[in-house]
């Protein structure tokens, strides 16, 4: 060992640089680094198991507290107390506080997960009976009495109504919402500041007030009939500020140097917006629209005031039209057990619709590369591709191979 031999020659009182042994094996990080030791795991799981045993003893043998709910509550309390005791024995008060906080936070989170699971599970369980009948998906409620069995009637008219109302609502809100966001970000100025202030203020508008507004103006003052179109207007009034604001936030994070690069290549502002800003922000914009949509499809109060309820399938938005939330609401309020079951079937259909929209939003937000969403905006390669497209579109600068420079 040369290192040891050299170390023997060290003279006290002078400074020596440490000698590196070229033959020594490369240092390896400790495999257990950052992981709990066996003892830690034992304390953790042991106190949980002990708490479960104590809770069982207390609930089933000592006190008259039967049922899963009491067991979970007592288990939670004992797991905090036991965990605290074990931690106190090991490391003192700071460790005890750490363990209590960890246990409380974990249990609170599990409570949330349980609540969400119970919401979804409960709706599908109660709605299962109508859901398994095929006619539920292909039939409407025309001529179906409140006491008729599940082999009659269905939810088709409500689904179609919801989709038509949302479609019209979207046709109004998407161009206006995204257009406003573009205006606020790309044109700017004092007027844009006013628009932004008002739009942000109107996101606070409760959905029922949006419905009441359309009810008063469209139905009473202008004398129109209750219809699917009125409901679309109410949904649009409710969604417009939400979508405009969300798109504004999305456009604001488009990096300025992308815009500047495009402008520096000589393209017009319109081309910059159309070929650089909007494509860059596309996943975010899609998410904004779809989340606004998920909000719009589930809101009952605007349609409650404006659309009226129809039992038959109709494709004409100027007639009375049912929609999923309204369908559920009227059936559940009727109090008839069969109708309530049907209402739960409708709720399950609504949940499926929202789930589909939600998954679509996730898929669009995470494009082909399957990168997590928070990545720094795009790679240089995609930036270069966009500039080349821009170049071809504007013909202001001669052909430059940007790939060669940026890919290195």
């Amino acid at each position, binding site marked *: 060992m040369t290192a040891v031999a050299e170390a023997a020659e060290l003279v006290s009182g002078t400074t020596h640089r440490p000698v590196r042994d070229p033959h020594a094996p490369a240092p390896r990080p400790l495999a257990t680094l950052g992981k709990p030791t066996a003892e830690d795991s034992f304390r953790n799981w042991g106190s949980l198991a002990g708490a479960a045993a104590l809770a069982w003893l207390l609930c089933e043998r000592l006190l008259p507290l039967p049922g899963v709910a009491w067991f979970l509550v007592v288990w939670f309390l004992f797991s905090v107390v036991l965990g605290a005791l074990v931690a106190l024995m090991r490391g003192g008060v700071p460790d005890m506080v750490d363990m209590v906080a960890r246990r409380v936070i974990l249990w609170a989170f599990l409570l949330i997960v349980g609540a*969400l699971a119970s919401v979804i599970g409960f*709706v599908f369980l109660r709605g299962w009976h109508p859901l398994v009948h095929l006619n539920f998906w292909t039939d409407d409620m025309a001529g179906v009495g409140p006491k008729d069995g599940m082999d009659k009637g269905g939810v088709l008219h409500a689904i179609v109504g919801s989709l038509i109302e949302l479609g019209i609502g979207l046709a109004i809100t998407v161009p206006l919402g995204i257009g406003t966001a573009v205006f606020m970000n790309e*044109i700017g100025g004092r007027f844009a500041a006013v628009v932004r202030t008002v739009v942000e*203020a109107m996101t606070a508008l*409760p959905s029922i007030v949006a419905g009441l507004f359309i009810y008063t103006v469209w139905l009473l003052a202008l004398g129109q009939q209750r219809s699917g179109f009125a409901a679309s207007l109410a949904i649009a009034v409710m969604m417009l500020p939400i979508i405009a604001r969300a798109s504004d936030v999305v456009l604001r994070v488009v990096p300025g140097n992308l815009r500047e690069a495009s402008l520096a290549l000589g393209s017009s502002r319109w081309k910059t*917006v159309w070929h650089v800003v909007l494509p860059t922000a596309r996943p975010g914009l899609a998410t904004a629209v779809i989340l606004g949509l998920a*909000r719009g499809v589930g809101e009952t109060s605007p349609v409650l005031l404006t659309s009226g309820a129809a039992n038959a399938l109709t494709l004409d938005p100027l007639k009375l039209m049912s929609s999923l939330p309204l369908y559920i609401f009227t059936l559940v309020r009727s109090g008839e057990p069969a109708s309530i079951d049907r209402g739960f079937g409708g709720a399950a259909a609504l949940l499926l619709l929202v789930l589909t929209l939600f998954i679509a939003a996730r898929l669009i937000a995470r494009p082909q590369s399957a990168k997590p969403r928070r990545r720094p905006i795009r790679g240089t390669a995609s930036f270069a591709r966009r500039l080349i497209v821009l170049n071809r579109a504007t013909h202001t600068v001669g052909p430059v191979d940007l790939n060669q420079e940026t890919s290195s």
Partner: protein
Amino acid sequence: MTILRTEVLPSSRPDVDQRPRKISRKPSGVDAVFAHSSRAVGATVLVITGGVGLFLALQAIPTLRDYGTSFFTEEQWSPDTNQIGIAGVLVGTVSVALVAMFFAFPLALASALYISEYAPAKLKPTLVSMIDLMAAVPSIVYGLWGFFLVMPHAGQVAVGIQKLLGWIPIFRVTTIDASGAVVTADPHAAVVDATRYVSSAFCAGIAVSMMVMPMACAVMRQVFSQTPPGEKEAALALGSTHWGMIRAVVLPFGRGGIIGGTMLGLGRALGETIAVVLIVSPAFDIKPRILEIGTATVSSLIAARFGEATAAQLSALLAAGLVLFLLTFVVNTLAALIVARSRSGAGADA
């Protein structure tokens, strides 16, 4: 219009015009069309959204003329006797929202901390999606859940709370005895009158809390995730426990997000309609007893009474809607200000 002048450089070619060219920032061609049309879109949206607000504000004038200040002090909403006021429903709105926040705040804080600090890194995106999904579940579904699944149990819990804390006025539950007098309900009776303990602000608040929890949680989590890792590592390197690090670094850094997220949730809770309509049985007196049957919020009032209203009462309903809108607006604006002013709010857009 700004005209920029460039320096004139000597040119070797006398045939080239040597005057500086004019540079204008005024958009021309397609750009002018783009600028004007997008300005028009902005103006349209301003007219629509501002129109709603203006319309609501104008509706308050005839209401004040018809009902005077008693609109704000009268408890009852009885169109038959034309006695109309929003004092009762305002108290109901605030009590439902406060019950909702009582449950939603600790749960939102804990789950935001769990997702950002405790959860395994591989699970994190899934958990974030789960909370987002929870925010997307329609309110009528939470209403069904609250009415059919939670309310019977919540009624039993309410009996228990009255047993323990019935001496506090807000947990008192009254009932009407055989002689017709209003007395305190007896939670120790052999057969407890369960109907007095359901359809209350407490039950509605539980369902509403499920709606606002994910919103508040999302804002908090976003802010927590921006905590500078250097500061967290510094706390750990100084020997802090995990919780000590959270208390010393994450929570102070995220304070703005905690307050802002909570207030955003509160704003949503104030305006929630359909779950409340499903759960509560309407009652329009000022009732600070949250466990007792019967309450009403501004939005449930509108949903229940718009059909039978006369023109004056309709404008009174709209004025009630305006009050609700202003309440929500103030809460939301404060929330946005708090999030934006805090140290962590620089990039956070709730």
